């Protein structure tokens, strides 16, 4: 005999109010899949929409901080690649495709040459390993990846920009706030710019590069 959704909801509420951190998925597993489980899920969601935030003591807060998913999110917040190295391989595996297959589909989608497949796969691997800044990915590639991997472009964008949103804003006006004379710094900057100006121009981006490195409009 399974407990009723009403009874389980009440137990969940009592645990929540007491700050005992009830786990929704464990509760859902106590009823058979189907109408009863759906009813309990909806009832718990309703409760969570209006529930007061329980007082969490230091131990409970430390416990939450130690949750693997929280650790991963906190770790990703400081990274250029944001959450992509964490979510991209998982989404791909869930979609049941290899990096090579994704590359092949992208090549077809963007009418690239057959010879571009290896380079596309390489870019994809770099993205999955956090070696490429995902904010440089073009919007059309985001849309295509989203369709292939079953995620919206917006979700992928959020995951990409996740780390950057938590950094200090660009320090415009630093020179004006400097207490020491700024000339040596300015001279150094000019020297770097002058060196860069003397370097030969980098090769222009081809279509594959534009997709992966060209920025949103690329």
């Amino acid at each position, binding site marked *: 005999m399974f407990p009723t959704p009403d009874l389980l909801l009440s*137990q969940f509420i009592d645990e929540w109010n007491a700050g005992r951190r009830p786990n929704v998925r464990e509760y859902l597993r106590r009823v058979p899949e189907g109408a009863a489980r759906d009813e309990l899920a909806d009832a718990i969601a309703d409760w969570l929409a209006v529930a*007061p935030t329980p007082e969490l003591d230091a131990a409970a807060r430390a416990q939450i901080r130690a949750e693997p998913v929280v650790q991963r999110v906190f770790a990703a917040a400081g990274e250029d690649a944001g959450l992509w190295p964490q979510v991209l391989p998982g989404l791909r595996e869930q979609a049941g495709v290899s990096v090579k297959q994704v590359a092949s589909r992208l090549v077809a989608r963007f009418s690239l040459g057959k010879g571009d497949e290896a380079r596309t796969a390489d870019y994809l691997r770099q993205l999955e390993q956090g070696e490429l800044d995902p904010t440089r990915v073009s919007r059309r590639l985001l849309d295509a990846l989203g369709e292939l991997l079953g995620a*919206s472009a917006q979700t992928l964008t959020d995951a990409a920009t996740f780390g950057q949103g938590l*950094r200090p804003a660009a320090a415009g006006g630093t020179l004006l706030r400097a207490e020491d004379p700024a000339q040596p710094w300015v001279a150094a900057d000019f020297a770097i710019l002058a060196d860069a100006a003397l370097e030969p121009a980098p090769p222009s981006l081809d279509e594959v590069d534009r997709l992966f490195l060209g920025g949103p409009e690329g």
Partner: protein
Amino acid sequence: MAARGAGDADAMRRWWEELVITIFDRMDGLVGAAHKGRLDDEEHDRAVSLALSRFTFNLIHTFEGVSMGELVNATKTLANFICMDVQRSSMARRTVSLDHGWDADDDGGSSSAWEAAESQRRFALDEHARDMDAFREEAMTHLSPRQREVVDLTFQGAEIEEICDRLGLTRDNAYQLRSRGLRKLAQLLRDHEDAS
């Protein structure tokens, strides 16, 4: 966000981490309820990660002018949305805009909101409590007298035993009154959010 504007990344980071810790159980629970236990652990964690990244994005870009009450509601909405992303085919659910409740202008003028990060966090949480208190007070009048008594005691933190003792109810009766009362409140909250 002035911590961000002023380059005080540590303060901003601490503030954000504390907020994530505060909202984590609710977010995790809403994601679990949204997929109704159909995602495996890995998929669930991925959905929670994505929900937290969306939450962070929205917080940073639109926090100013968004109450914590809206935040909770938007959390529920985005948990549903993220689950649709992670497992699109399994559930029929509301297809509301992800940006519902997050319409504050991204005008770049939000930097002052990061000031005094810790006090801001507390203020925001107090705001949420006040918003919810005001909503509950009004919404409770729509419940039947018995439902109102049970739900009121629930919000005061009373466990089911105590509710049965104080109101002279059987357990089954108390479970039912609690469930139905809360369902009605949640519906009223949805109506309230839709209207505003």
